[in-house]
């Protein structure tokens, strides 16, 4: 391989950009292992004390648990709604359905601040400010596009004659959907649910707009923690999050890969 100056320039540039993207994320790991009482790199030796603080702090554990159960409900709700939407569109498969699919994806394109402002105005009217339900509802709406993208990908691989065959063999529409369509698109639904959980779990802008004191999620705790104190426990939490996110994303990618891979014949 010839090493032209241009080549070296671009290779260096690529690595620099990659490092710029990844380093801020990775820097939390050494910081979380610090032996000092403030945010900074370890001075004398590595320490797990801040992980220990996290695991024994009721506030942190409470916020973590809140984020987890909200995430689970959001994943379930958005997967149910998104799948129903996709199957409906798939059956229609005309222009209206195509337009509906595009409209469904628009929330991804709208800036989160604008969206949160909209939620805020509307949730005030509905009396949902500072309620868990309000957050769940907002997160479900934010997660829906991700679910529809993933479920639609699974549906496009499905032969339209398959539900027809089920009905021809005696299954009414609902039974045909339950016994034949849902099992076939399950990989897409699971991938969608995982993405929905991630969207909810690390969502911060909406939570800041919609909650005051009663609802405390993990991202909000971190945000407030960094403003009020320099406690390295934040770095410990961040490290746990980075590792968890990597694991869950890897699982989601592996799933969608398995779903799109053709079966051996």
């Amino acid at each position, binding site marked *: 391989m010839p090493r032209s100056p241009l080549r070296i320039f671009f290779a260096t540039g690529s690595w620099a950009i990659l490092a710029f993207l990844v380093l801020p994320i990775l820097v939390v790991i050494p910081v979380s292992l610090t032996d000092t009482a403030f945010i900074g790199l370890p001075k004398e030796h590595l320490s797990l004390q801040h992980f220990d603080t996290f695991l024994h702090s009721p506030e942190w554990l409470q916020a973590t648990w809140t984020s987890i159960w909200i995430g689970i409900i959001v994943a379930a709700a958005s997967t149910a709604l998104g799948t129903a939407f996709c199957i409906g569109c798939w059956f229609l498969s005309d222009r209206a359905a195509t337009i509906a699919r595009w409209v469904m994806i628009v929330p991804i394109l709208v800036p989160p601040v604008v969206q949160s402002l909209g939620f805020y105005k509307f949730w005030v009217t509905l009396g949902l400010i500072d309620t868990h339900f309000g957050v769940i509802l907002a997160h479900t709406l934010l997660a829906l596009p991700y679910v529809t993208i993933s479920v639609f990908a699974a549906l496009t691989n499905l032969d339209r004659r398959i539900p*027809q*065959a089920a009905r021809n*063999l*005696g299954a009414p*529409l609902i039974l045909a959907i339950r016994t*034949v369509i849902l099992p076939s698109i399950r990989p897409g639904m699971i991938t969608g649910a995982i993405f929905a959980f991630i969207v909810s779990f690390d969502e911060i802008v909406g939570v800041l707009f919609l909650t005051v004191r009663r609802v405390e999620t993990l991202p909000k705790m971190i945000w407030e923690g960094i403003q009020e104190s320099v406690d390295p426990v934040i770095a410990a939490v961040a490290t746990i999050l980075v590792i968890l996110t990597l694991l869950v994303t890897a699982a989601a990618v592996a799933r969608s890969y398995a779903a799109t891979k053709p*079966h051996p014949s």
Partner: protein
Amino acid sequence: MSEPILSVRQAIKTYGDFRALDAVNLDIREGEFLTLLGPSGSGKSTLLSAIAGFTALDSGVVHAKGDDITRLPPEKRGLAMVFQGYALFPTMSVAENVGYPLRVRKWSKAAIRERVTECLDLVQMGQFADRMPQQLSGGQQQRIALARALSFKPDVLLLDEPLSALDKQLRADLQWELKALHERLGVTFIYVTHDQDEALSMSDRIVILKDGAIQQEGAPNELYDWPRTRFVANFLGKSNCIEARMTGRDGDHLIAEAAGHRFAVHAGTGVAETGKGCLALRPERIRLGLPGDEPFTGRVKQISYLGERCQVLVDHDVLGEVLVSQPTWHSGVRPEPRMDVSFGWDAKACVALVDA
């Protein structure tokens, strides 16, 4: 004749400006093997889909054993269908696929197991019960689709181009099997295909469709021997089309005149008895001879060797190009390119067509 098991009356279906079905009337007799044959866009699949309940007709009715089923959803019609591409359920094993209609009908587990085994044996797929559909070849998937459709003992089996995805040899084998299965089970088969060989080899009766309307229906040999229209004459096998002048009726046949010769032709109802007419003549009904042996004289233009048969294109001054098909193993004239030959045919070998 007993009451038809299915009947379609005045079925009309349009997609925008396109008339998929144009006032189709059709009766299907119990136990027959009926084939809907036509080119793509002829409406044959739309007709099958309307019978199965997947396509809503604009107008017209479908009756099953006297009951109006026009507005009945597909799952309540009890007509089994074998789909193009098989449409096996990918998440279920072969046994689960075949047992699906029975589970939907809430059969007991033991009864389902017994019937599934029976159906798989029927299509010689007994040892594949635990496989997944993706692990089977096309022909094997086809058999499973057949077993699945037959498992709930339907009276009527609808087949939508079931062999179109298979290679030629396998297709021929499965044609025999389908025909044998039909005779053994006594189930009414409605078979859709665009393949004339499939239609001729299996059917009791063929319905030929074109542009959403029935062109002609009848037994395979009837349609082949006595086509009524130019379309049928050319779609079902090959035909020479001979322009002739009709000079009148003589008993049960008509007299036609072409290139200075008069001969008797077969004529169905609705054929003009005088004036210009068009005759269909099958290539294998034409005899070749040396000049002077037969009434018409021409020159061999091209020869195409097909193994068991040989096709000879003969140029005639008035009739134009005439296609002759001869067995390769015969004792008559062996034509060569650019050779002068004579040709002729027996009385009533030609059929007068309706669309002159």
